[in-house]
């Protein structure tokens, strides 16, 4: 399936958001949004991905 992950087009095997995080090597404290909607971590397992989904995975970063 073709998706866009953090702004980059990707071809992935995963069918759910939680599988995608594992497939792409994300771990630790991250938060997710799909098509600009926040998806809480508790809902990632049940969140099925669709062709063309835009997924954001963010983590702690320096800030002012």
């Amino acid at each position, binding site marked *: 399936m073709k998706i866009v992950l953090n702004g980059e087009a990707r071809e992935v095997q995963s069918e759910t958001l939680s599988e995608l995080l594992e497939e792409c090597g994300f771990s*630790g404290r991250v938060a997710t949004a799909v098509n600009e*909607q926040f998806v809480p971590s508790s809902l990632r397992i049940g969140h099925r991905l669709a062709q063309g989904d835009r997924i*954001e995975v963010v983590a702690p970063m320096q*800030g*002012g």
Partner: protein
Amino acid sequence: MKTFYGTELPNPLMLGTAQYPSPAILEQAFRESGAGVATVSLRREGAGGAGQTFWAMIRDLGVLILPNTAGCHTVKEAVTTAQMAREVFGTPWIKLELIGHTDSLQPDVFQLVEAARILTEDGFQVFPYTTDDLIVGERLLGAGCEVLMPWGAPIGSGRGLNNEYALRAMRAEFPDVPLVVDAGIGLPSHAAHAMELGYDAVLLNTAVARAGDPAAMARAMALAIDAGRLAHEADPIEARDMAEPSTPVIGKAFLS
């Protein structure tokens, strides 16, 4: 000292975590400043898990965490960012930034009030980065904010308190609300000035992180903030236009 959503700050300095020459210097700066709050943000996670390394270091500082919505230009973007920040950082605190103008990074106060209302209703404790406008301040309080953070000057400008009159008026208008000067501080004297006006805290980043010696500047800021707070508590004299001799006039020897 006023509390921030029920939390008493260890001291009135909130320090940003961006722009330091290295993580080691960031840690030194925090130690020297004694800051009780660190501001942080969220960005796309890279393949190497850079965010996790950063998080481990910030957690070890043992300070309160205030995530921001820096760079957000719409209510929707800011609300989504806040939701993600609450999950990642495990705190209901959010420094709400809604930028309206790219050059000045001036807050878009209309969207700010709307986002503050949405987030407050969702259980967030909002620290709004706002202008020094009194009516906007009232609207933010009406939207559920219990803290106001007016700018001293544009973010990163180091210009100090651009409008002392407005900041003074804000302090007088909201005597019971915790007020923080956020942004624009360049020198310790600016931070002291904010505290002399009776502000409850100062939030700064660039002035320390981009100084030639960030750890030394962090210490200087801490001392200035202490001095300013003490001065405010000591009830300073009013400025006057004419001189007034401090040495007694009576008893002066007659020597012509």
